[in-house]
């Protein structure tokens, strides 16, 4: 028995016609850390969801210790010792750590949940695996690094011998990542088998024994990590060599387009979500906002885009206070917004591509005359955008839900980055998007900047922030704790220290710099 687990010729086609996996074979050896690598949308997560029983394969077979497996649900997978930690944590924020870990397997005392036993169980578990967690802490108040540990413990508590970790480092700072790796190595020594999904090549080289590379739903082969170079992995992931360098025009910044003054926000909580934020984004400038998820970035973006109220302080876009404007009026002044959640906010899924492209300008003179839409002009414009952004689709009249994530995002960016756009708020503009599409999106954001637009960029991808930003601020617990005017002096490690709140720049200095 050479392999602990094998997946053979697995294919998966979704109901909307997207082929997520095509004839993929995948195998695990007992006690290895196996990296599953590929671009976003290459089918890594789908393959693992099949293994974990969340998706049914359209064809293909699974073998555990050479015995064919029939997994119909996650419960089946857990019974066979397979556990998965999802990219988005599946934890109840209002529960304590012990309650989350014992959810569904609660120790009972005469049909009542025995809280003390749950706490004891959690303590014993955290000792056994050397994961320091407080069983009585309320989950919602904990940092993401700890939440991830809880997820891993949850899987172990259910008897998982094979652990699937879906992009575990995406939400972690460099320091937290390092700690996670140490823990994974310990688990491996105890005989656990770990699947590590990632698209970061450095991490794969650092931690894995073997690596399976996926591209466009197909497997590009499996390799011993020590025998393949970073460059080789990279080429196999992309399938060709791609130049993703970005050239920005050197220029002086113009007048302030976004001015935020003394902005504080509580949103009904006792602790401020945002505290005394001051900054200006000027014409021709990209300002990046870094920070660990949940430090107020989402709220800041939502206030700037009017999904949340300004409680105190002021926000001005093009010198006008946003409180006195409707979204329509803001948009008429050249306001663009690439939202974080494109499926829920960025597109109308069952509408056509062209209808999605005009939602912020359908009633301008160019596309509308006395209430009647100019169909020809709209089609012309849509075809032009599809060509300019090389959107892969069946045509401008096809439904947008037939497009891949990357192409859908190109439609969103094409709509928001117009010639008329003077202010752009971009939230995770390339999350879940392949390298090629990300490059096109980057180019267009920079083009907007070069033409005098002001861009506020929120991103969890530090490489993206460093590549695009002219100035960069780091958020921690609702405040700016660092501000860089010169990005060449930044290292990712130093950024990590600010993001974790370990280091802080002087507040008055930050304030002076970003609001001069």
């Amino acid at each position, binding site marked *: 028995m050479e392999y602990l687990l094998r997946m053979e010729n697995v294919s998966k086609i979704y109901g909307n016609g997207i*082929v997520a996996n095509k004839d993929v074979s995948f195998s695990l050896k007992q006690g290895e850390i196996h990296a599953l690598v590929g671009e976003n949308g290459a089918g890594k997560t789908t393959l693992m969801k099949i293994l974990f029983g969340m998706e049914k394969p359209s064809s293909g077979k699974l073998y555990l210790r050479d015995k064919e497996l029939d997994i119909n649900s996650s419960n089946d997978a857990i019974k066979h010792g397979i556990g998965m930690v999802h990219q988005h944590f599946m934890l109840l924020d209002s529960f304590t750590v012990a309650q989350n870990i014992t959810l569904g397997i609660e120790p009972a005392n005469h049909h009542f949940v025995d809280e003390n036993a749950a706490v004891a169980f959690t303590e014993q578990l955290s000792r056994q695996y050397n994961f320091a967690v407080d069983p009585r802490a309320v989950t919602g108040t904990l940092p993401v690094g700890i939440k991830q540990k809880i997820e891993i413990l949850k899987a172990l508590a259910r008897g998982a011998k094979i652990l699937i970790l879906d992009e575990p480092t995406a939400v972690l700072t460099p320091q937290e990542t390092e700690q996670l790796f140490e823990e994974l190595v310990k688990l491996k020594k105890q005989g656990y088998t770990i699947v590590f999904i990632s698209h970061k090549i450095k991490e794969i080289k650092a931690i894995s024994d073997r690596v399976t590379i996926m591209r466009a739903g197909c497997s590009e082969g499996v390799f011993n990590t020590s025998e393949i170079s970073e460059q080789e992995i990279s080429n196999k992931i992309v399938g060709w060599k791609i130049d993703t360098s970005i050239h920005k025009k050197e220029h002086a910044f113009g007048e302030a387009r976004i001015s935020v003054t003394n902005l504080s926000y509580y949103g009904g909580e006792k602790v401020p979500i945002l505290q005394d934020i001051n900054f200006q984004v000027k014409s021709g400038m990209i300002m990046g906002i870094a920070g660990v998820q949940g430090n107020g970035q989402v709220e800041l973006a939502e206030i700037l885009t009017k999904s949340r109220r300004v409680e105190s302080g002021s926000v001005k876009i093009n010198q006008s206070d946003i409180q006195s404007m*409707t979204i329509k009026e803001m948009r008429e002044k050249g306001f663009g917004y690439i939202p974080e959640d494109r499926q829920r906010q960025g597109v109308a899924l069952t*509408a056509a591509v062209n209808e999605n492209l005009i939602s912020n300008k359908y009633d301008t003179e160019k596309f509308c005359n006395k209430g009647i839409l100019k169909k020809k002009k709209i089609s012309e414009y849509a075809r032009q955008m599809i060509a300019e952004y090389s959107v892969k689709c069946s045509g401008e009249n096809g439904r947008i839900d037939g497009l891949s994530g990357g192409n859908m995002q190109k439609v969103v960016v094409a709509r928001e980055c117009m010639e008329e756009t003077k202010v752009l708020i971009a939230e995770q503009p390339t999350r879940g998007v392949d390298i090629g599409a990300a490059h096109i999106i980057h180019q267009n954001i920079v083009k907007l900047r070069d033409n005098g637009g002001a861009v506020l960029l929120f991103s969890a991808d530090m490489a993206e922030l460093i590549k695009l930003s002219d100035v960069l601020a780091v958020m921690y617990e609702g405040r700016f704790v660092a501000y860089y005017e010169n990005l060449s002096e930044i290292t990712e490690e130093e950024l990590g220290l600010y993001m974790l709140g370990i280091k802080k720049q002087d507040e008055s200095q930050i304030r002076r710099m970003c609001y001069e």
Partner: protein
Amino acid sequence: MSREKSFHVLRTTVALIIAMLAAFAVIFMVSDTPIESIRLFILGPFSKPRYIGNIINTAIPLIFSGLSMAVVFQASQFNMGAEGIFYFSGAVISLIAIWVPLPVGVHQVVIILAAAVIGALIMLIPGYLKAKYGASELVTSLMMNSILLGLGSYLMTRVLQDPMASNGSYPYLDTAKIPVIIPAFKVHYGLFIALLCVAAVSVFLYKTKWGYEIRMVGINAKFASYSGINIVKTIIIAHLVSGAIAGIGGSVESIAMHTRFEWNGLPGYGFTGALIAMLANNNPVSVIYAALFVAYLSTGADIVARLSDVPAEMSTILQSLIILLIASERFLHSFKQRWMERGIAK
């Protein structure tokens, strides 16, 4: 046609076939001459010009109610108010039809326009409550139906009731009536008004900015609001248009098919309208076909009820079955999956 669209057509067809088979099963159970009854049910509606005319005349109010529903459904508003509006606009325009003498032509136009305004104003109430305060339009519109029924009955007993007639208002003036086109078929001119409305709604929904706003709000309200579309305004517009169409439907039905106001309760067009809109996937042109089909079924059921031993309630059972099958999202789901897969494999 895309596979997605073909699937909708396929699902609708299969649902209809299953419903028909269920109807046959019912006939077999209750009828002593089942084969004859089924023959009457399927072929009966085409056996005489009068019956064909009856299909079309039955379809006309269904086109109005289906259109009215399609407009609100497109905005993802589940408003059932068309039911009450049909009834109430019929009652109110009876005042004009009985007591306001006007020349032929003008009389009908005044009646229809008045009905449109009444319908729109009534719909404004649930529409405004939903748009502004988030009150469920389903609940408010159903409540409104009861209120409208009460108001209509009050109007009937206190004002309209003809003491000489056993159960009806004073007769309508001749100038108010909508005449028949071809006497043999008995189809009335309301057909053209209905088709005109279909064309108008089609243009409104797919060619104007208001239609665009309604559809975007219906597909994804978050997206619409983020794009700058005024949701409150859009929801209210959808309700106004829907109400106006329902109002027109109620008035046309009254002055074309009746010589006096004689509805004693809600006529049921609104609820059937929801079925029609669903069958038509909220597409205005498809509403015509869906209405004709439902009209054909109910005509068939009427004929069977009259000429054989099967009760007319069968038609109601059939309609409910169709709604059930169409409304179940997951119906034929696994089939859809395989169908999509095959499309890609090609």
